[in-house]
Each structure stands twice: as structure tokens, then as C-alpha cells.
């Protein structure tokens, strides 16, 4: 297979898949190395981008997905009559953040962190395909675990969940400060 054929085969695969396809899966089926897949995609992407083609390739989860180029959205929108996505409510966004950073996580854990019932928010995120069930926790009641999906990654432009904006989850300084405070108070 020539380099050009490899590019075209990948183009066909990404088009037909309609979801992200892993580099390793493509390499195996095409009988080439992962590095060759990466190179072919890089060339294809370069061609798409320099010519401002209708298509675009994004990275997702060690794989690639094809989508339409934003600059043509106005025409697509008119034809498909697409409604623009509505912004998530604060409740839904908070819930999504907890799931994204803490996954997999149960409904109960989410509620404990937020301090309020989160059923509505969770259902909304499920409906939008941003989260999905990820089995059950091996604990009494076997509660459902939730995790984020590929749809979440591509909506938020993340390659993997490791790309989430960094937040300091532990904040050891603050905890240390707290311990100090308690001591002082007891002395006083």
C-alpha cells in the first residue's frame, strides 16, 4: 500500500465509523505500524487544513474522529435545520465536573459533594450522552457508577480525560492550615 493509499483508506474508515477509531485498531487492520497511521493522518490533516476542506480530523482517546469544519457550519445549519446546543445548567455542569474529575463515581458520592439531590442533572447528562453508566460499585445496594463519554471529550475539545484543566484536588496547604488553626484554638 502506498502512503497515499494508506491516507485514503484511513479517510474511508474514519468516515464510515462515525465515532473515534483507535490508532491501534487501524494499525492492526491495515497491517502497518501505529507510527505509520499517525504519519498518514498528519498528512491527511495537513491537506484538509491548508485547503480548508469541508472535513476536519480531531484527536480523541488515542484515536481520531472526522467532523465538518466549523467555518462551513452556517450552511450546514440552514440545511439540516439544526438547533444549537443549549448551555448546561449550573447544576448539570457541577455534576459533570465531579464525574469528569472523579470518575467512576456513584450518584450518592455526587450528591454528597454537591449537598443536593442530583438526579435531574444526572439524567440530563445521560440524555445528552455526556456521561454513561460504567458498571456498579461492589458495595451494598450495588450503586451505578458513572463516567464521561467520547461525546463529552469531543464536545469539550479534549483529547483524553487527562487533558482536563488541572485542578488542585488535595490542597495540602489548606489542610495544614486547618490543623494549625484547631491547635491554636484549643490553646486559647
Amino acid at each position, binding site marked *: 500500500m502506498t502512503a497515499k493509499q494508506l491516507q485514503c483508506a484511513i479517510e474511508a474508515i474514519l468516515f464510515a465509523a*462515525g465515532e473515534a477509531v483507535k490508532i491501534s485498531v487501524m494499525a492492526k487492520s491495515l497491517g502497518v505500524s501505529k507510527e505509520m497511521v499517525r504519519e498518514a493522518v498528519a498528512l491527511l490533516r495537513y491537506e484538509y487544513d491548508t485547503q480548508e476542506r469541508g472535513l476536519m480530523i480531531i484527536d480523541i482517546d488515542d484515536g481520531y474522529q472526522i*467532523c465538518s469544519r466549523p467555518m462551513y457550519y452556517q450552511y450546514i445549519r440552514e440545511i439540516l435545520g439544526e438547533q444549537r446546543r443549549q448551555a448546561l445548567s449550573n447544576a448539570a455542569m*457541577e455534576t459533570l465536573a465531579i464525574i469528569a474529575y472523579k470518575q467512576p463515581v456513584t450518584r450518592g458520592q455526587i450528591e454528597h459533594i454537591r449537598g443536593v*439531590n442530583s438526579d435531574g442533572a444526572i439524567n440530563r447528562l445521560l440524555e445528552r450522552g455526556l456521561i454513561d453508566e460504567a458498571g456498579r460499585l461492589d458495595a451494598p445496594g450495588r450503586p451505578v457508577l458513572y463516567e464521561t463519554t467520547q461525546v463529552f471529550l*469531543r464536545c*469539550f*475539545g479534549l483529547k483524553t480525560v487527562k487533558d482536563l484543566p488541572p485542578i488542585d484536588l488535595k490542597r495540602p496547604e489548606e489542610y495544614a492550615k*486547618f490543623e494549625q488553626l*484547631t491547635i491554636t484554638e484549643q490553646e486559647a
Partner: protein
Amino acid sequence: MEKILYKLDTFEGPLDLLLHLITKNKVSIYDIPIAEITDQYLDALVYLDEMVLENSSEFLVMAAQLLYIKSKMLLPKPETETEEDPREDLAQRLAEYQIYKKASAALREFEFWSRDMVFRLPEKINFPIPEYDRMHDKSELVKAIYDVIERRKERQTSPKRSFYGIVGREKVSIEDMVEKVCKILSKRKKVAFSDIFLKSDSKPEKIATFLAVLEMIRLDKISADYNEKEKDFIIKVK
């Protein structure tokens, strides 16, 4: 004290309201002036512009927790024991909540990253995919049905839903309930806490009554002492 009108639905929950008060007072999560913050928290609930019932039970649970911490801090500490700060659990919950609130704001920035991109569904392929050929035990089907039923139960018994089903969006003002409690106490010198509740018809009324009693205790108009024999709080006029 100035009257501040709060709309409960501008806060995501009791922790959110507390964080707001903490920020407003410029104090540390780890050293909350509990008496002050509790008062402000109760004020926020009492002077609610509008009672939003959706999460009101959680707001009340927090009110009770704050009062509990406050009372614990008033008790003399045993000298020998190195007792935990009663605020510690709350501080940690607030710290954790604050982290995710920040994370949520950070994620918000990316929300529409792919707004103008269209992803298509998998192409319909005109060749057969191999038939499913894994073997499963039939008990897996029964388990799956139970999972569905359980989840349904969770959904149906969630406080929010059951609340809406019963009460709709009825509004009860706390002032009215303060008046009601005063009326009851004008006839009798003391009354059992649960008796006051028996006279409330609906959930919102019960919630408002509860807040009214809290408020009256706070303003030192009444006292509530636990009676071991009756296993109830006895409310008396001061």
C-alpha cells in the same frame, strides 16, 4: 440586621449558599465564625423572597447541622481530651465542593468548543456483522431486570420528584408560620414540638413552620427543651 432577599434557586444548594456567605464575610473555610454564619444562613432562609421547594429539605438539614455545630462549640471542652473541631467535617465538605465548583467554571470555558462541528452517526454498512456468539448465563437477564427496577425505584423516590408530585409549587411564608406558632403559644404556655407539626397540612407548611421555630429560638422568643419522658421538644414562651 438588614433584610437580604435571597432566591434559593440562585444557589445550587446549601453548600453553595454557605460558600457565598463565607466569601462575603471574607473568612476562611477552615475557621468559620460559626455563630455569625449560622445567623446569616438562617436569615437567608427566613427572608427568602420565594420558597423554592426543589431542594429546600437539604437547606433545612444544613440549618440543623449548623445549629448543632454552634451548640457543640458553646459547650465547655473537656480539658484532657484533644477533641476534634466540630467544624472540621463541614470545612472539608466545603473545601471539596469549592474545588468542583472551580472545576465546573473551568469546564464551562470549553463548553462550546465543538459547537460548529458536525459529527455524523456511523455509516449504515451493507454487509452483515457477525452474529452475537458469546455465551451468557440466563441469570444475567434477571439481574438486568432487577437493575432496571432498582434504578426506577431510585428515580421515583428521589425527594425532589416526590416533593413536586405532592405539593406542586405552593408558597408559604415563614412570617405567617411565626404568627401561627405565636397564636398556639398564646393559648397554651407550652406545647410539644410535634404538636405544632400536626397542625401543619402540607410539606411546605411544615418546612416553613420548622424555620419559624428555629427563627423564634434564635431571636430568643421561645425556648425548646428536650423532654426525656415525652421524647419530644417542649416549646415555651420566654
